[in-house]
């Protein structure tokens, strides 16, 4: 059946750094990182150290009862930092719940990142302040939002790009396929950035995509790149490539960043029930921070200063995060009925008045018992 088309995972797997941190050539990706300086690499390293620290601190805060839940990105720092650092301020990110390192790169304060997980708000920041939408908890829904935004950018004649972040599990949701359809049909300037971290809670990627992920987009008419997601340089390069295509009228690009979720799905998860320990050990060897460190080392840039400075920033950020988290005020009771509509609404307004009266009846304490 040789003329029957078969789906095969593309053998192509783009890398710029070996797990040992050795810089490897890539005809496709090299052009996109020629301008990357040692300072840039150091900055990427700093970012990665800081967001790993944010992750650890948030996990600790959850264990201490200060957060309701936390979804660690441990292991995915290169995929998130490498891609987010490629973006311009006028680009717009539509992400899932795990992209906290992306939020960091978009200038969201660590405290704001935690609001949602502390339960004081359902959106930690104003999306327009950071060019990053409120993370989507409904798996895959945001890929359509990104596509629509990108259609709008095209209509506007702008060269801004939308980036949709989502996981390997998300690729099964109908919304993600529909986003590929619309993006292809309207040649929308959108980058589909899939972090294949090998797991969707307890389900291995093979259940979602037995033929792999990167091969899917081409069938919809969207070029696809499969890259080493633990290689920050390759991620940066591929994202720049995709952004450039989008900015110059080339339409959508799909990137599968192959990485690994080294922690639990969330702090509520118990991966020992489903995940072989050996797999984790294997992936620990491909740790994205270690890899960049080795590269820096080989360039003579892994200096005590860099270490100290990264450490200091991480410490300061962690302290800010902790203090900010604990200091987050509980929302005022009546905000429960605020902002349901943008304009006055007879039904909600009445309920708010009634509830205010009800609360007042508990005076003088004023609050809920």
């Amino acid at each position, binding site marked *: 059946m040789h003329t029957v088309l078969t789906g095969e995972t593309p053998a192509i797997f783009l890398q710029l750094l070996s797990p040992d941190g050795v810089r490897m050539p890539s005809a496709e990706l090299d052009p996109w990182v020629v301008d990357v300086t040692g300072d840039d690499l150091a900055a990427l390293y700093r970012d990665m150290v800081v967001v790993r620290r944010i992750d650890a601190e948030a996990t600790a805060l959850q264990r201490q009862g200060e957060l309701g839940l936390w979804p660690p990105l441990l292991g995915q720092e290169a995929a998130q930092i490498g891609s987010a650092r490629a973006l311009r301020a006028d680009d717009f990110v539509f992400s899932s719940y795990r992209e906290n390192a992306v939020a960091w790169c978009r200038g969201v304060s660590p405290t704001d990142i935690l609001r949602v997980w502390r339960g004081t708000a359902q959106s930690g920041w*104003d*999306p327009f302040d950071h060019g990053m939408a*409120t993370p989507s908890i409904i798996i895959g829904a945001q890929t359509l*939002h990104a596509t629509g935004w990108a259609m709008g950018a095209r209509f506007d004649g702008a060269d801004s790009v939308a980036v949709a972040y989502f996981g390997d599990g998300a690729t099964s949701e109908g919304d993600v396929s529909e986003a590929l359809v619309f993006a292809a049909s309207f040649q929308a300037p959108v980058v589909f950035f899939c972090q294949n971290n090998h797991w969707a809670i307890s389900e291995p990627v093979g259940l979602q995509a037995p033929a792999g992920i990167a091969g899917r987009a081409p069938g919809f008419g969207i070029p696809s790149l499969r890259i080493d997601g633990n290689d920050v340089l390759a991620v940066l390069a591929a994202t720049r490539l995709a952004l450039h295509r989008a900015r110059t009228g080339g339409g959508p690009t799909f990137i599968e960043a192959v990485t690994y979720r080294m922690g639990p799905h969330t702090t509520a998860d118990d991966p020992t029930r489903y995940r072989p320990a050996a797999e984790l050990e294997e992936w620990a060897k491909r740790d994205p921070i270690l890899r960049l460190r080795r590269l820096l080392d080989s360039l003579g840039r892994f200096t005590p200063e860099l270490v100290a400075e990264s450490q200091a920033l991480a410490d300061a950020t962690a302290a800010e995060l902790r203090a900010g988290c604990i200091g987050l005020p509980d929302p005022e009771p009546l905000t429960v009925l*605020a902002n349901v509509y*943008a304009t006055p609404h007879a039904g909600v307004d009445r309920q708010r008045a009634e509830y205010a009266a009800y609360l007042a009846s508990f005076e003088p304490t004023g609050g809920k018992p």
Partner: protein
Amino acid sequence: MTIESLRSSPAPAVNGAPPVPLTETTTLTLAKAINAGLRRAMLDDPKVVLLGEDIGALGGVFRVTSDLLAEFGPNRVIDTPLAESAIIGTAVGLAYRGYRPVCEIQFDGFIFPGFDQIVSQVARFHYRTQGAVRMPITIRVPFGGGIGAAEHHSESPEAYFTHTSGLRVVAVSNPQDAYGLIRQAIASDDPVLYFEPKRRYHVAGPVSPQLDAPLESARVVAAGTDVTLLAYGALVTTASDAALAAADEGVSIEVIDLRSLSPVDYAVVEASVRKTGRLVVTHEAARSGGLGGEIIAEITERCFDYLEAAPVRVTGFDIPYPPAKLESHHLPDLDRMLDGVDRVLGRRR
């Protein structure tokens, strides 16, 4: 408005496109009134874009978007691939970028593949972001039965949306309101489900460019003193006919066109029920969980001491929409409305 003005008369001949733009009172069919309203909104605001299946060259299966592609081009009148979740989901993204998208769902029964994006995204972004992100999205839905159609083409899904906080829901019954409310819906910074009574698309009536009803307002179609009869969409005509028939028998019915289904304009309904003491609510949607129950519960709470009888519902049955040859049994008609009136007057059962 006199009760005589309700008598159905043959529609005057209406041809061609609405005047460009509508400047004086003009006779238009309901479909053309929406078309004129869309056109007006698109002329007024370049951020208004239309999305939907077959809305371009074809002008939509009901021709509501006729000629708009030619006038505004493919970046404003967007024929989309066949995927409702994507129609709504990309509208969310467009709204994020400052657009005011108007989505057409081809028939009522095809809204469900887009349900998640409506309920979990469109309805919630403003609340979710503490007001930072607005969703000025209008979702147009031809709804209701009575056209002898195949399955999924005659439904009344409005109660799913009136139970969804964050959405506004309107249903129009005549060309004037259709023209006014489509523009109000598009101008609203909140998402609006806009239901169009498909079996009345070709009924014509006067449309004045000035007479805009506010989004949240009900309309007293005919004043009456004995019974309040609440309807919306296609059934407003039937209710008006029932009022005429009842008048011939000496029963005075106050017919109210709800227009806004969420929120309900309780000021108008309450005033009427306080006067009549008797309430009948009618809709095509299934009885259980339909809007009728909600309104009756609310009015019972607000007007208990004024009620002279238990409010009555005249609605579709608790069944999936039936085959065309049975729909006349399912749909509330004049006789069933009068039966409901008899019941609330204690004349039956």
